[in-house]
C-alpha cells in the first residue's frame, strides 16, 4: 500500500503530508490558563511607566533586566495598547504574558506591568499611593513638576518601591526620608505651577 506520502516526492511538504507531521496542536496556547496556578506567589511589579496622553514617557522604572531595545519596544506597544482603551473600561488588560494595570491622572497615565498572578487591585493602589507621595512632596503635583524635577520623582519612587517590591507604605516615613534628603540643601526656592493636575490627591481618575 502506498499512501499519499509514498506518492509524493519528499520535498513537497504540502497538504496531505503535512497533516501527519503536525503534532497536536493547541497546547502551547493553553499554558496561559494553567500558568495561573503555577506562577510564583510574589508581588512583584515588572515595570512602572508614566506617559502623557501623547505617549511621551515621563518616567520609566524597570525592575527586571531588559535591553534598551526591548524597553523601547515595550514602551511603544504598551502605551499604544493603553492609550487606545475606551473610557470607562476596566483598569486591567492582558498584554502578551503580562497583566497591565493602568490609571489615568489628569494628563498622565500611570502604568504597571505585573506577573500573571499578581494582585491587580493592590497595584492600582500602589499607583495611587505613589501619586499621593508625589503630591505630598510637590504640593498639588502636576505633569510639569515631574518633567522638571524628574530626579525627585525617581527618588520618591526609590523610597517607596525597591526591586519591584513595596518597601514602605507609610506616607509619613517616605516624607521623612525625602525631608532628610532635602535638609542639607542650601538653595532657597520658589515654586510655581502651571497646568496643575486637578484633584490628583483626591484620586479622581478623570
Amino acid at each position, binding site marked *: 500500500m502506498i499512501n499519499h506520502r509514498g506518492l509524493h516526492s519528499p520535498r513537497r511538504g504540502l497538504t496531505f503530508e503535512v497533516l501527519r507531521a503536525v503534532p497536536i496542536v493547541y497546547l502551547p496556547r493553553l499554558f496561559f490558563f494553567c500558568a495561573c496556578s503555577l506562577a510564583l506567589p510574589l508581588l512583584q511589579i515588572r515595570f512602572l511607566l508614566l506617559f502623557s496622553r501623547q505617549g511621551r514617557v515621563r518616567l520609566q522604572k524597570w525592575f527586571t533586566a531588559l535591553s534598551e531595545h526591548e524597553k523601547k519596544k515595550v514602551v511603544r506597544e504598551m502605551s499604544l495598547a493603553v492609550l487606545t482603551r475606551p473610557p470607562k473600561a476596566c483598569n486591567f*488588560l492582558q498584554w502578551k504574558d503580562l497583566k497591565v494595570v493602568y490609571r489615568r491622572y489628569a494628563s498622565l497615565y500611570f502604568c504597571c506591568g505585573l506577573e500573571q498572578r499578581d494582585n491587580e*487591585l493592590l497595584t492600582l493602589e500602589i499607583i495611587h*499611593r505613589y501619586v499621593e507621595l508625589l503630591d505630598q512632596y510637590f504640593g498639588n503635583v502636576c505633569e510639569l513638576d515631574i518633567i522638571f524635577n524628574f530626579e*525627585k520623582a525617581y*527618588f520618591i519612587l526609590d523610597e517607596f518601591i*525597591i526591586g519591584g517590591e513595596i*518597601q514602605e507604605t507609610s506616607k509619613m516615613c517616605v516624607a521623612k526620608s525625602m525631608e532628610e534628603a532635602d535638609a542639607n540643601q542650601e538653595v532657597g526656592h520658589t515654586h510655581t505651577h*502651571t497646568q496643575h493636575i486637578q484633584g490628583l490627591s483626591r484620586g479622581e481618575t478623570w
Partner: protein
Amino acid sequence: MPAVSKGDGMRGLAVFISDIRNCKSKEAEIKRINKELANIRSKFKGDKALDGYSKKKYVCKLLFIFLLGHDIDFGHMEAVNLLSSNKYTEKQIGYLFISVLVNSNSELIRLINNAIKNDLSSRNPTFMCLALHCIANVGSREMAEAFAGEIPRILVAGDTMDSVKQSAALCLLRLYKTSPDLVLMGEWTSRVVHLLNDQHMGVVTAAISLITCLSQKNPDEFKTCVSLAVSRLSRIVSSASTDLQDYTYYFVPAPWLSCKLLRLLQCYPPPEDGAVKGRLVECLETILNKAQEPPKSKKVQHSNAKNAILFEAIALIIHYDSEPNLLVRACNQLGQFLQHRETNLRYLALESMCTLASSEFSHEAVKTHIETVINALKTERDVSVRQRAADLLYAMCDRSNAKQIVAEMLSYLETADYSIREEMVLKVAILAEKYAVDYSWYVDTILNLIRIAGDYVSEEVWYRVIQIVINRDDVQGYAAKTVFEALQAPACHENMVKVGGYILGEFGNLIAGDPRSSPLVQFNLLHSKFHLCSVPTRALLLSAYIKFINLFPETKSTIQEVLRCDSQIRNSDVELQQRAVEYLKLSSIASTDVLATVLEEMPPFPERESSILAKLKKKKGPGAVSAGELEEGKREGGEVNGAERPGDNAAIAASNASTPSPSADLLGLRSAAPVSAAPVSAGSLLVDVFSEAGPAASTAGVNDDGFLSCSSALSSAPPSVVSEDPAPPLPESDELLNKFVCKNNGVLFENQLLQIGIKSEYRQNLGKLPNTLRNIVLLIFIALLNEILLNVQLKPVDPLVEGGAQVQQVINIECLSDFSDAPLLNIKFRYGGALQNLSLKLPVTINKFFQPTEMSSHDFFQRWKQLSQPQQEAQKIFKANHPMDTEVLKAKLLGLGTALLDNVDPNPENFVCAGVIQTKAQQIGCLLRLEPNAQAQMYRLTLRSSKDTVAKRLCELLSEQF
C-alpha cells in the same frame, strides 16, 4: 517660564528642559541636544576642575537626555566621582545616573562597588540606603558577588535603623533573584523569619517579600514563618481601622502587609497545627464577612484595598482547596461581584472564578453562574472583561454544559473582537473535541467554526477535524454529507474547501448513492471553488480529484479533461503542474488494481494526544521546545536531538539490550509463543524462529518465499548479531495488543524515534496454500521520526534511514494450531550512537483467523446446545469501559472477524456471532453471545467453542474491548 524645582534648584537644568520643551520639531530638539552634549563634553574635558554642583548639574542633564531616548556615551566617570561626594544630593544624582545607565565596563563597576562599600560602612543611614537602592536597581552578578555576604549582616544587626533594614531586605531579595547561589542565608534564617514580629510595620512589609521568596526555594527551613504569619495576619485583621495609624489606608488596616502575608501562606500547605489552622480559618472568615459590611468610605481606594485583601484570601482558599465551606463562600462572593457595577470587580471575579472552577469542591458552584457569564460575554463593553468571560466559560465547561457553552461561544464569535478571535476558535475546537459525545456534533461545530471565523481557524484546527474523521469510521458518512452541504454556500471559506476536498476525496463514496450528491455533482462542486483558492488548496484539490478517479471510475474522463487543460498541465506553479502531470499519467496508465492500491483510503492517524508533547516538554525541562521546534528537529535529522538523546532514551532504555555491539542493529521477529519454550528460544538464533522446524513453529509458521529469502539475509549477518538477546516486551505491549483485537489497521507503537503502523490483510488463496486456510499478511510500516541507523533483516534496506522515511516489512503468518500468546516483534536499531532495542507484541491474536459463518437462528441454537460441556464454555461478566453504543459494538464485533447474526437472539439488545477459526491442524467453531445491560453498564459475554482453550482465550481478549 520654567518651574523651578524644590530642594536644590539647578537653574541650568531647568532652562535646558524648558528649551527642549519649546522645540517645535524633532530636528530642533536634536540640534539643541547636540549643542548641549558638546557643551557638557567640553566642560568635562576642560582644564578647570568642575565643582560638585556643576558636575551634578551636567550629569543630571545627561540623564535627562538619556531618558528622552538618546544615547549617552560619556559622563559615567563624572557620575562615579559624584558617588564619593560628601553632599547628599550630589551622591544621590550619581547613584541615580548609575542605576539608570548601567555600564558593564569592569573598571567602572570596580569603582562603583568601592563607593558603595564606603557608603555601606559609613554608618550614615541615608548614605546606606542610597547604596542599597543602587545595588537593588542594578542587581548585577558582580554586585551580588561583592555584597551578598555583607547585606544579611546589615539586615539582622541590632543597631541598624529601620529604614536601612527595609532597604537591605529588598536589596537582598533582588540579589537572590539574580544570583541565588551567592546569597547564603544559613545562620541568618531564623533571625530573618523573626523580622515578621518586628515592631515596625514597614520592616515587616519589606522583610516578608524576602521571606516569601526564600521559603519558596527552601520551604522546610522557613516553616516557622507560617505560625508567625498567621498570628500577624490575625492581629491586623482584627484591629480597628485606626489602630495602625499611618499604615491604615483609607480605613483599611495595612492592606499591603495583609496581602503579602496571605501570599506567603500560599507557599505552604494548610497548617497542620490545629490551633494555627483554626486561627487562620477565622481570619479568612473575617475577611469574607467584612466584604458584606457596608463600606466605611465611598472612596474607590477604600473598596479597592478591601477587595484586594479579599481576592488574596480567596486565592489562598483556592490554594488550600480543602475547605469546602470556604470555597463555596468564596464562590458566592465572586458571584456577587459578577454583577457588581464596578467593571474592575467584574473582571477580577471572572478571573478568580477560572481558578475556582478547577476545584472539585466548587466546580458545581461555579457552574451555577453560567447564565451570568454568558450574559457578560454578550453585553460587557470592555473587551478585557469579555475575554475573561470567555476564559471562564472555557474553564467551567464539562460534559453537562458543553453543548450550551460551545453554542454560546460560537454565536459570540460572529461579533467577537478581532484580537481574541483566534484564541476563541481554539477554545471552541478544544471543547468540541474534548466533550464530543457524538462526533457528528463535533463535525458540525468545527464546520460552523470555519464558516463563522474561517480566517482565524488555524491549520491545526482543520487538520484535527480531518484526523478525527479519518480515525472514526462512524462519523465519516455524516462528515461527507455535512461538508457537501456546507460547500453549497455561494461563498465559503478556503479552509472549508480544504476540509471538503479532503473529506470528499476520502469518503465521497459514502454519499454518492444520493443522486443529489452523485460523484459528478460532488466533483463539480469542488471544482467550482478551485479557481478561487490559493496554490496549496489547489494542490490538495488535485489530490482529491485523483482520489475521485479511484472512488468513482465514471468521473475519470471528466477529471482527466480537467487535468489535461492548459491551466493545470502548464500551470506556472511547478507543484500544481507536477501534480497535474503525474495524476493524469497515473490515471491513464495504471490498472484499476494499482490505482486502488495507490489511492487507498488513508490509514488512521496515530492517536497523539497532548500526552506525547507534554511528556517531551517535561523531559526537556525548562525552555521546552514548542511543537514547531520539535518538527524542525525532526526534519533536520538527528543533529539537535541527537545531542540530548541520552535523557530521551529513558523510555526505550527499559528494553535496551545489555550487550551493545557495533553494527548489531536489526529488525527481527521472534515468536513469543509457548511460554515453556521461552527459556530455550531466548538465547537462540532468530533463524530458529523463522524456520518451520523451530520449537515455536507450533504457533506461528512461515510459509512464504519472501521469508526464505529473508532467512538467508539473516544467515549472512554476523553471528554476534543474531545471538543478542531481544529485549523483553514493553510493559504496555499487552495494552497495545488489545487495541488491535477488533481492528486491522492502525498505529501499533510510537515514540519520539519511530512509529510502527500495522496493516493486516487476510488472504485465502496465497501461493500454494490450500484455500481453506486463512493467512495474514502483515504490512508493517515503520515511519522513522528521526534519523537512525537501521539494519533490517527481513528485507534488507539502506543501513541509514533518513528522518521521515518509511520502511515497509511484510510478514506472512499462518496459524498452525490455536495459540494464546502473540508473536513478538523485535526491533533493534542504532540512533545517535546508542543501540535501541524494542520488543512489541505483534497484533496477531487467535481471532484474526476467524472465518465468518452465517447461520439461521435454528442452526445457531442447535450448535449452541451441542457445545454444552462445561469446559467448552467461557463466560465473563464485566463493566463497560466505553459508552454502550450499539453501532460501535456492532463495528467491534464485525472487526473481530465473526459473522454478526441478526434475528437470532430473542432479545434484540443482545448480539450473537459465529465463526470458524482456521488453523492448519483443525477448524475450530466458535459461537459468541454478548448481553449488554445498559442500566448497570455491564456486559455478560459467553463463548462456546469446540476447543476449550480457544473459548477461554477469546473471552479474555474480548472482555477488554467493550
